């Protein structure tokens, strides 16, 4: 129960951050990515602020042997580059630049009843399922890596 409330609270704070940062306004996202027009550097501050804060604070929690409410840290351990990482990131970027929505803001916008999110989110989930079907028979990168007693095979 404590774990569920924690996850819910984290989702709520995460949503507040995305909204305050301007990530739920696709025009700001595209205004950042398209640096040739009336460039809006706001998103650099969202990403920089999130990255800096997390990089600074995570040191204080990862020095513990385990998280407060769970038996072990489940952090990706996969190393090395592969075609999937490169191709996946490239494809993701094209979709992000096209619609101005990445997964977090899309879900928050869906909660806000935004009509564009009613199109983006189902399509995004379909894309995820399509990926899982496509690669269901090729377990190369899907092999879980055992780290700290937990199965992890993703980066995030």
């Amino acid at each position, binding site marked *: 129960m404590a774990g569920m409330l924690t996850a819910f609270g984290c*989702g709520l704070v995460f949503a507040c951050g995305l909204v305050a940062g301007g990530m739920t306004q696709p*025009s700001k996202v595209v205004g950042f990515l398209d640096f040739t027009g009336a460039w809006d550097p706001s998103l650099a501050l969202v990403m920089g602020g999130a990255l800096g804060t997390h990089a600074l604070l995570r040191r204080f929690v990862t020095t513990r042997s385990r998280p407060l409410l769970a038996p072990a840290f489940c952090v990706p351990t996969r190393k090395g580059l592969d075609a999937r990482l490169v191709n*996946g990131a490239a494809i993701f970027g094209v*979709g992000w630049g096209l619609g101005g929505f990445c997964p977090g803001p899309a879900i928050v916008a869906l*909660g806000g009843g935004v009509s564009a999110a009613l199109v983006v989110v189902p*399509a995004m989930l379909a894309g995820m399922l399509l990926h899982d079907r496509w690669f269901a028979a090729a377990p190369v990168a899907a092999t879980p890596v055992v780290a700290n007693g937990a199965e992890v095979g993703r980066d*995030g």
Partner: protein
Amino acid sequence: MEHFTPLSSLLGGILIGVSATAMLGLLGRVAGISGILGGLLAGDTSGGPWRTAFVAGLLVGGFLFAAAAPAAFAMTLDRSTPALAVAGLLVGFGSRLGSGCTSGHGVCGMARGSKRSIIATLIFMTTGALTALFVTQVFGGRL
């Protein structure tokens, strides 16, 4: 520079960083949205119902903000329904194939110093910028 919102954007970033740290320190999990959504779709229930609870927090947050500050969801980007559908499809497929998105790679992975995440972030920022540039230059910002 138009519509630059340095203070609220920095505050937003800090909140995201705090949330990601709480997820790690309390639940031991990475706050990567595509990974959480993908886990839900694949029926991964490891560690309990935290994925559902986190996504519920995102949805409720959106619901509350839409009531309090609808301008936060201004959709001034000129995109047709088919364009949005294609964008969503690529975001979903690509983030799963590349094992992460803006949050998982761009925030959590980079903060961890992961080489994979740094490369992934550089790649999706580049293809994102090229796509936005292409839509502006070739289609006049409407698609």
